[in-house]
């Protein structure tokens, strides 16, 4: 059974802080994704990675960076958090060319 875990369920940060969101999957999946979910907008892709140390920009990468030093771990970094980054952040993974994404439970981030 695929398991995708995210380091925090809820986070409260101040404007300007550096924020790290971590995602770990235990099924040896090659591909990992970070999305944010906002009301009325659905899920929007921030960044994805198809291999260790590889990353590709998604649709809304501005203000974010990522790190993938190990296959099972994909980190999302907010270099200087802003209030418009208040959102639900979802991590997902897929195996190879598989189409089905397995999602973590999400991190609800509030930036004050």
């Amino acid at each position, binding site marked *: 059974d695929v398991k995708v875990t995210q380091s925090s369920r809820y986070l409260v940060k101040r404007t300007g802080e550096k924020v790290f969101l971590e995602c770990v999957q235990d099924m040896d999946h090659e591909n990992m994704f970070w999305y944010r979910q906002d009301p009325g907008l*659905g899920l929007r*892709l921030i960044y994805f990675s198809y291999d260790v140390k590889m990353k590709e920009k*998604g649709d809304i990468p501005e203000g974010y960076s990522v790190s993938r030093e190990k296959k099972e771990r994909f980190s999302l970094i907010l270099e200087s958090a802003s209030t418009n980054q208040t959102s639900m952040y979802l991590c997902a993974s897929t195996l190879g060319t598989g*189409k*089905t*994404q397995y999602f973590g439970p999400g991190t609800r981030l509030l930036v004050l």
Partner: protein
Amino acid sequence: DQQVKQNSPSLSVQEGRISILNCDYTNSMFDYFLWYKKYPAEGPTFLISISSIKDKNEDGRFTVFLNKSAKHLSLHIVPSQPGDSAVYFCAASGADSWGKFQFGAGTQVVVTP
């Protein structure tokens, strides 16, 4: 501009009746479509998918229909059960977009007894 649209933000249906969720897309390169279900405080979970070479795919109570000419797909849930109350997301991907999916805004389904 959103390439996948779910124009109904919410749907209320009686237990035992049919739920029909709609999804429209604009990108003619999309060739694979999925539906995900999301409960509060949980991540989305895969429900059912369809490739563009088919026009229908069925899995138990869930059936997805694809109308390529209209760029429209729908999810039918028959019969609806209280446990089906959730947010449903439609997602689409194309051969040119490797593994990247565009998601709709979601439809909140409430199944009433």
